[in-house]
């Protein structure tokens, strides 16, 4: 299946993929520091394992950045 991640096209040999797996595959170092948006809907962090991505989903990783000083 085909997923867009932060504007880039990605292909996967599966028909559904939990967000937690995508975070691993995408080598996101600190999954707790990322907010995940799927097709415009921001997913609650507690639901990453239960949320399955489908063909043609558009996923955005929004990284927490707390600095400012």
């Amino acid at each position, binding site marked *: 299946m085909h997923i867009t991640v932060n504007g880039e096209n990605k292909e996967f040999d599966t028909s559904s993929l939990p967000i937690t797996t995508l975070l691993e595959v995408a080598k996101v170092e600190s999954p707790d*520091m990322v907010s995940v*948006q799927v097709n415009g809907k*921001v997913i609650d962090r507690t639901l990453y394992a239960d949320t399955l991505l489908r063909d043609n989903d558009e996923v955005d990783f929004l990284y927490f950045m*707390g*600095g400012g000083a």
Partner: protein
Amino acid sequence: MVKKMIDFTEEQLERYSRHILLADVGVEGQIRLSSARVLIIGAGGLGAPVALYLAAAGVGTIGIVDNDIVEVSNLQRQVCHFHNNIGKAKVESAREKMKAINPDITVIPLEKYLVADNIREIIRDYDFVVEGSDNFPTKFLVNDACVMESIPFSIGGILRFDGQAMTIVPGESACYRCAFRNPPPPDAVPSCSEAGVLGAIAGMLGTIQAAETLKFITGAGSLLTDTLLSFDAKNMDFHKVRLQRQDDCAICGKEPSIRTLVDYEQTTCGI
């Protein structure tokens, strides 16, 4: 329409000439800037360039909140504080530089911590808020308070070589909580040793926030509303993610679950 309001001195016309020349700002835009009231939260890496540029731009009244004193470790990026200000209150140090650039403006230094108990009363006096704090509890507190008070604001964050900003018009565009929901778990927030920042990154993001403020006041261009702008200065990649209001947002959604402000636990050292 603006007849009675044009009373710029010759010096002010020269000072603001590069604004007045802009078709999207003009005399009217400069008048709006002169009568605007902006609150800057944090007189640090982001707040410093914001303070200097808003002062230079002639924003009539600028409040600046911070409870820290200037330390030598600040000087690598907090460009409104100088070596001879070490030990001085940051808001006082910032005020001196802002007035030195532009004596016409009024600066209101607020040497205090922003907390759930005082924030709404403080921000209520302003047309626009610039969030430039160094921690998630404050960022979420500012978001929630500005949504409750319907005050538009810019929120930013920096880390290492990266920066991000979004502009929020409560009731119209996605808020910080629409994008991030809740503060990250305290143990996931980068520790001090992982949390350096290239000094100029603070300037890059602070000037983006200052530009958003000036655009909001003058009505020029389109804002970073419903948009998270991020950059990675290592490669100078800029990226925009489109956001939308979330119906289930805890503060600006259809049935907000947050009715009163709370202070989240402060974590780690300031970045």
